[in-house]
């Protein structure tokens, strides 16, 4: 059973809508620790402030359960948007430590490195470049593009963890994959056939 973690942050209905289309009609949206303990795979969504997200996870008392399921039992987890940033060690946006599952840090877009016409947040579609072979991008239609809304992005300490990159002013990490731990900065649930294929792959191959 696929479970979308409800920790009071982010738009969960649209993820469930896309999962339905991807052939997973029974994805569960849940804030129940016992349900997380039973799930086969997890989606960690999220939109908003890094510290708020980490505090919400702590308040829900999810840390131990999540660490055990993901780090020891190695069930697949897909972070989306803020959910992907939370996989990192921490963020320039706040003071809270992240989940620390990926050896990466979350940094703010640097306007000094970008042409003046580009605004932050990065809001819109971006073409992505796949950096390593992954089932998550299996059978992906040509020229994949995804919808982004973000002010911060991941920076990997270990380049081998980078799954996809995108360019906005300069290239940045748009997705990571390390074993059972995956994260994408963009919104597959808002990204037409590309997002549909990605979520279909997550259901099918992980």
């Amino acid at each position, binding site marked *: 059973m696929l479970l979308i973690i409800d920790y009071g942050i982010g*738009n*969960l*209905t*649209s993820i469930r*809508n*896309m999962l339905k*289309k991807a052939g997973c009609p029974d994805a569960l949206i849940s804030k129940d620790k016992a349900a997380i303990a039973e799930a086969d795979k997890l989606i960690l969504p999220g*939109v*908003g402030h890094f510290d708020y997200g980490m505090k919400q996870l702590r308040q829900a008392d999810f840390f131990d359960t999540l660490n055990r399921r993901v780090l020891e039992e190695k069930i697949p987890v897909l972070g989306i948007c803020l959910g992907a940033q939370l996989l990192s060690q921490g963020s320039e946006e706040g003071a809270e430590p992240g989940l620390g599952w990926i050896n990466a840090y979350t940094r703010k877009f640097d306007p000094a490195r970008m042409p003046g*016409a*580009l*605004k932050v*947040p990065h*809001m*819109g*579609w*971006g*073409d992505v470049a796949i950096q390593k072979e992954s089932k998550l991008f299996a059978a992906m239609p040509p*020229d994949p*593009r995804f*919808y982004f*809304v973000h002010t911060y992005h991941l920076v990997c300490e270990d380049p081998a963890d980078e799954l996809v990159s995108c360019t906005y002013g300069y290239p940045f990490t748009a997705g990571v994959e390390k074993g059972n731990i995956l994260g994408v900065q963009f*919104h597959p*649930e*808002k*990204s*037409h*056939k590309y*997002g*549909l294929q990605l979520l279909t792959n997550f259901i099918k191959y992980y």
Partner: protein
Amino acid sequence: MRRIRVIPVLLIQNAGLVKSIQFKKHQYVGDPINAVKIFNEKEVDEIVILDISATQAKRAPNIQQIAEITGEAFMPLAYGGGITRLEEIKEILYEGAEKVVLNTSALDDPQLIARAAQRFGSQSIVVSIDVHKNWLGQYKVYRNNGTKNTGINPVELARQLAELGAGEIMLTSIDRDGIFGGYDLDLLKQVTQAIDIPVIACGGAAEVQDFQQAVSIGGASAVAAGSMFVYQRPHRAVLISYPSQQELNEKLFSQL
């Protein structure tokens, strides 16, 4: 390559899809849900849906209709019309809309923008400004679907809205609406130069070159259009269309 969002704007009046000319002469063009399905198949970047009859009728957003629409929209969707309360914004976002669009209530209750931005993030709060150019050549903000002159200067208002926490400004020229004459580039320039948040140009688009001008000359971050995507010229036959990725690449993205 820099991608610009190209956004169809759909107007709902009494549950039907309509299109206007200069905010008047609304003509029925079809069923909203069917239109969203077609735009979804055409893989549009984003879609804006405005219920233009809600405020006039003092009607709250129709959450059930919004849920039906978002169930067919696998792209970002912004919804506006009749929103006056934080709770309504919460429900609309919960149903799968990415953003809400405020217009009349942003003028009546500016603090709603601040509270909404704080709670849901600026990125989900779009404020639309409808502008008419008077006979003296002055730009004035109109409200209640373009029916009442507020006397306010759009640049001043845009500054205030940005300050309050609006994430984007959708800037519509009432005079250009539905007449296929290109965007009001002067209006766009004035507003985009005054604020840092993205401005969505709206009103007047006839072809992809107009998008390019709105961005290159007007400084817009995104472009929106209504008639161009629901009518086939010259006879305004109803036909939903959207430029292909190839056309957008050639005439827009690669020209920026």
